[in-house]
């Protein structure tokens, strides 16, 4: 005998369906009302025509695009080198900070001072000091300002990343270290094979977050005189007094960030599933 839902059950199902339909309709209606309201408010405003010409002019966008893309190349190179540099330096500082033993006090103190100092110091000040101060020393050879700027970004971001790594390292349960040591692994072997692999995996999402932020901050080297994507847009804006190039640069940055953000979300989700669901994947 097949299952025959009772009249009451049928009623319940129908009721549920009607409620679901109702909430979909309400959601759709409120979205439409809000959207239309916004569009009408913006496009109907007295200054809309002017704003449209100033911020959304296709011809200006087209003519600014090559210069902005040219500047973007610098952003990408800087992102690559600064991300690698900041990760390496950050990891080093984190490991130094977690060293045990009285003899390591000076380096631990130094590392702590560094993370305190450079997380507090605005990046733009570090850039000024390095990009304008170092050439002023007039050494026999001074690296180009873009390298100095990259260095400023690395030491600033490494301070944040060091703290992220440190949190990861400290989140590994002490019993793991104890087990490793009792198996005869040295301190460094424990660090390399037991602690760091777990620590890095746990802080992956936070690191990717920093990477997304870094992607936007590398452009600050433009204060040293080099032309990144935003600076290129600024030059175009000043030529035409039209702000569309900024929108162009902004959209390009968003397009660049989307894959990175998607990867971040995916990694976070995967980690959460693995850690909380008890190995179902």
């Amino acid at each position, binding site marked *: 005998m097949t299952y025959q839902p009772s009249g009451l059950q049928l009623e319940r199902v129908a009721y549920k369906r009607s409620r679901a339909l109702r909430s979909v309709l309400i959601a759709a209606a409120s979205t439409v009302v809000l959207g239309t309201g916004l569009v009408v408010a913006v496009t109907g405003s007295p200054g809309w025509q*002017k704003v449209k*010409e*100033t911020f959304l002019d296709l011809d200006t966008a087209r003519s600014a695009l090559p210069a902005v893309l040219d500047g973007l190349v610098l952003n990408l190179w800087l992102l690559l080198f600064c991300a690698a540099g900041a990760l390496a330096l950050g990891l080093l500082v984190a490991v130094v900070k977690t060293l045990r033993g009285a003899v390591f006090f000076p380096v631990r103190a130094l590392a702590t001072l560094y993370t305190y100092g450079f997380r507090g110091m605005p990046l733009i000040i570090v850039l000024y000091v390095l990009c304008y101060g170092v050439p*002023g020393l007039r050494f026999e050879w001074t690296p180009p300002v873009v390298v100095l700027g990259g260095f400023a970004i690395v030491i600033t971001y490494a301070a944040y990343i060091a703290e992220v790594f440190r949190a990861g390292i400290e989140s590994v349960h002490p019993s793991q270290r104890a087990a490793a040591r009792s198996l005869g692994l040295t301190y460094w072997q424990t660090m390399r094979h037991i602690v760091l692999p777990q620590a890095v995996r746990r802080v992956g999402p936070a690191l990717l977050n920093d990477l997304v932020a870094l992607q936007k901050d590398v452009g600050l080297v433009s204060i040293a*005189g080099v032309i990144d994507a935003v600076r290129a847009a600024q*030059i175009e804006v000043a030529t*035409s*007094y*039209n*702000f569309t190039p900024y929108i162009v640069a902004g959209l390009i940055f968003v397009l660049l960030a989307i894959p990175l953000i998607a990867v971040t979300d995916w990694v976070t989700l995967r980690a959460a599933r693995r850690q909380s669901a008890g190995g179902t994947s």
Partner: protein
Amino acid sequence: MPRARLALAVGSAALLALAGCGTAADKKSDTKPDAFGCTADKLPTLAKGKLTIGTDNPVYGPWFVDNKPESGQGFESAVAYAVADKLGYPKDSVVWTRVTFNAAIAPGPKAYDFDINEFSITEDRRKAVDFSTGYYDVKQTVIALKSSKIAGAKSIADLKGANLGAQVGTTSYKAITDVIKPTDKPGVYNNNDDAKAALANGTLDGLVVDLPTAFYMTGAEIKDSLIVGQLPPLPGVQQEQFGLVLDKGSKLTSCVSQAVDQLRSNGKLAELAKQWLAGADGARELS
């Protein structure tokens, strides 16, 4: 203050003298504001009876003195007060407001009646803002440290291999990319203070600024520096000029332009330029 007032008084005396012996046209323009229908009581300024003049913060010499536009000292401060006077606003009816570059050119209500801050008039920019007629004919100039490799440059060709820089968004920057066309990418700086620092610390071989700024920087601001030479105007431009910026379609534009025209034809602009800006003497023309 007293000195500025004296300068104004001298200016007015010169005006009167001119009116006395000028042609009919001069006379007409010198019968004070109402001759061209632009009087303080009729002008639709932001604040009734006041003229609000915008400029950036900070502002630099020789255009302003000590970052105080309200002092009447410095070329642009003096020009602003002269224009205000022409429109019938005495000194105490002038209100200064500080407007950053982006805010000055952005769409939307402006915080000023006109803005004076070395804005070069170009056709592209005219699409976004109104300009008065030009109040100063400007030339772009290369300056360098005496120790720089381009200190003795005699032609534009001598500058091609140099590291040059300019402030972002200026026609000085355009002069590098469109007139000099150096082999290396030019340096672009947020402001002339950064650019000066880059010149002084050796990052740049040469800096491009307008001629009065060049005299000011080499004379008062950067030790052991010199003017390498003046550059020809940008391609397709007869003569670069600074103009007052007004909101696009401002009702004041024609009045302000007429005031500037009168100050030009009666010699006031030349007089102020002589008072506040060094002449072009001794600045070699590069070609």
